[in-house]
């Protein structure tokens, strides 16, 4: 796993813009988040997330393909745009599965500490993230209601 610097800030915003967590944050505000991202290059066979480890960062797959697995059992495969451990930047928890690169892969990593500092400094980002989480919660609750109704 090597740290690289290939993407412009605007390209990192393009990545963040597609993430559900930042869906309600305006692009020009995401510039500040984009500047916190670290670019990580992994080679085929590199396991960059170990199941059970407690980490407080998320990865976005920019280029390449990864395998999500529990032991040898493949749970899913993911490519560009996929986010791994999205909520870890808000609530760290043990990883539920391992993730291994299947081909040369470029990842973006967002760590919790600088992100929290940014949330302190830019309350508009925190507001937008809260709005997104609240909407997801409402959708889940609505779905639950429907199921209960049936």
């Amino acid at each position, binding site marked *: 796993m090597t740290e690289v610097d290939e993407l412009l*800030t605007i390209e990192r915003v393009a990545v963040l813009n597609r993430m559900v967590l930042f869906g309600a944050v*305006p692009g020009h505000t995401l510039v500040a988040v984009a500047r916190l991202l670290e670019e990580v290059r992994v080679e085929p066979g590199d396991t960059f997330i170990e199941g059970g480890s407690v980490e407080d960062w998320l990865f976005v797959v920019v280029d390449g393909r990864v395998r999500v697995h529990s032991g040898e059992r493949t749970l899913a495969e993911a*490519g560009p745009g996929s986010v791994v451990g999205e909520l870890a930047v808000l609530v760290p928890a043990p990883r539920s599965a391992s993730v291994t690169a299947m081909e040369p892969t470029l990842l973006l990593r967002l760590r919790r500490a600088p992100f929290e500092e940014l949330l302190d400094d830019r309350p508009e980002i925190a507001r937008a993230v809260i709005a997104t989480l609240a909407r997801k919660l409402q959708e889940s609750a609505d779905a639950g209601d429907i199921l209960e109704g049936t």
Partner: protein
Amino acid sequence: MLLAGQAFALGLMMAWILVPASAIFLEAYGSGLLPVTYIGAAAAGIASSASLSAVLRRRTLSAVAAQVLAGLACLLATAWVLLWKFEAEWVSFGLLVLVPIIVPIGFVFVVGQAGMLLDVRVLKATYARVIAGFALGFVAGGLAGSPLLRALGGTEHLLAAAALVAGTFLLLVEVTRRTFSAELSVVDVVHEGAERPTLRVLLRHRYITLIVAFQMLSAVESQWLDYLVFDRASRRYEDSEELAQFIGRFTAIAYGADILFLLLVAGLLLRRFGLRYGLTANSVAVMTLIGGMILAASLQGSAATIVFVLIVAARVTDLVFSDGTSRTSLSAAYQVVPSALRLVTQAKVEGLAVPVAIGASGVILVVLRWAGGTEGILLPVLTSVVVAAWIVVAALVYRGYRVNLLASLRRRTLDPAALNLDGADGLVVIERLVDSDDERDVRLALDVLAGANHAALPAILSRLTEDQRLDLRATALERLVDVEPQTAAVAARRGLTDPSFRVRAVSIRVLAAVGGAADVDDIAASANDSPPDVMVAAAAAITRLGSDAGRVRVAADLVRLARSRAAQDRVIAAQMFGECEPGEWMDRSVLRALLDDPDHDVVNAALAATRWPHEAELVHHVTDHLHDRRTSIAAVDALVRGRDSVLDDVEDHLHGHAFGRRGQVMLARVCRRIGGVSARNVLHRHVDHPDREVGLAVMTALAALAPRGTAGGAADDFDAAEMDQPGHTAVVRADLEHATYVLRALVALDGFPSTDLLRAALRDELDLVRQRLVVGLSMRHGTEALDRVQFQFAQHDPRSHALALEWLDVTLTGADRAVVAMLEPGMSDHERLRALARRFPVAAIDPVAAILELAHDRDRRWRRPWITACAIQAAAVLADDGVESAMIAEIESAINLDDHDDEIVRETLFGIRQRRSAGRSRLDPLSEVDRTA
């Protein structure tokens, strides 16, 4: 269609009741007794209204309609049998009395169902077609009457046909009920203990009173115009055949015009000109014709042909506009009556007020005939007076509609229950709260007593100053000093030796406020080796109560602490500055150093210590702290304490971009919190700030300073016209125009590859414009109204959307009306652009031209570096993809990096140049997004 079918059945039935009833009645009793049937209608109306209102409170509208129609069918069948078998001509009197009752009650059923099934906007748009069904049914009944009479052989047999139509009407109501069972199952439940909605209760609602007046005046006017037509026609055409011919032509023209108007233009006009037109068009048009008629009668005599033509024209106009505008508008007006009263109101108005008005018009006609006849201009003049009153009432109904529409948008709020402390029971509750282990309960009890200014409060507070709960002792002491200062002073002297430092600090502060010089030594002793809060309180007390020597000692301590290397000491120094009595003994220049301290806690304490006008020369040191989130709140508080004295500096910083967005947004907040005329004037001058986000903050501050509601409640110094300045109108207009350009770019880029980020940036811009428009309208129409509109738009219910849109429709005028296109949910970009382009015409643009315009921003329209950067990125990606390779080259050559001080534009362009020169490309990560992820 079902409602139109019901209306058609109603029209058909009425034609087949009216024709035989009139013919038999006139043949048997003559026209002189016609006004008596009007009076009979009033009596029947009162009876039917009472029973209808009562039954509507218990059963659904559909069930009531079914019962009434079944009864009517039986009644008509019985009348037919009586006339056919027993030649009972008196039955025709009963039928003529029923005619003015059946029509409005029939409409209560149709309109009531329409109100439950359609939202207010759909109702306005389609209701004319439903009403056209009635007119069509009436004409069809008239046309089919002759062949039917020939086939059946007797006038009375039309009643049998009418009975069958009543049965068909019943069938249609039943089909409608089954098709829309959920919507039509509502009953006007009156809750136990609630006021029973009698006519007297309803008339306490001003809006309902106005509706009643509107309908009564309309009914009297229609009745008298009808009478004038037939009275003058019977004088003009003495021959019965000529008279019949005239009536035939008149009916054909009136109902033909009615149907054409309803089907072709009524809905269109109502949508275009709104409810104000709908409620007033009829009365104004009729007034014009009656005015002309009175003038012509004065010049040429009442028998002149022109007078007769104008009477007929007035009646035809009245009929056409009644069906096409008044009835539809009134049905919309009913929709903002509180839902619990709506159907009962309709039943009372249509079933009681209208018949009473018809009866009154009949009584007046009888009196006029008895007093000297109705052939002169007296009746037209009386009619003009009624119409004039009708115009005034229509305008008032429209105003009431706007107010009630806003009330309909209101979400439910809980009414706070008042706590009665007069009785012993109330005090028992308070005592229990005071004794609670939870300090929040104690605070609640003290708040309630303080709110009621209760006599028991000082005794309870005094008792709590000796309570075992430490925090409560301090709280009680803090409160006691406001209600009984001397008792508080005694308790505070006791508190100087309290083990709790908080109680000691509060005791010192209480003594500083209400104690004397004799307390200084004890205060100084209690502060030795105490925590900072006690030290600060003691220093402040000594500077207030002590000698000059004591103040000099405090000043020396203050300077020593301010120069300390420990940040905590410097914080204490700043707190002392804030609390000590200002005076020459104090070197306030020390505060400047504390304001420039590198530690944020020290700066915040120093900001809290600033006093105005003492620190007037430090205002720039204060405003500098607006940029940092860690100090901005304290800086805002400090500036707010400066009130109007800081506004000149605030305004200087609000100009242009130099002070920065964050700082300027905070300055807008400062103005909002200062309030008053001067602060508002500063804000007024910056609503068109070149940075749209700062402008939004300025407008938000102004909107917050406007009165909450739209109907009064303004501050004493507030002039309602203040928020309606030409500058504000220009800002809303400029935002709408900007929105048109944003939408044009979005439409141009729709489906164009590799422009996701640019389109997202444009959508962010559109959201910003939308927020600005809402706030811009809030400034003029009140934040409460716009809050409600937004709340309704946020619901997933089309009826809520319709109510919100209706409020915007009847409130906004001129260019503001275009805002609807920006706020209405569910519209596509294309639809919004089409709607806005009508007012702000823009030429269509292709995607490449759109990207170039956004990248260059030659007109300074966009003023958004982020959009510029996104346009550059989109052009670069398109070049890499080989779609548009010339575009990025053009942008690169046209944009001079030295002209751009924004980091994101510089970084994007620089990075792209480097990559292009190195022959590399990676500009659109995730262009092949894994859809399976």
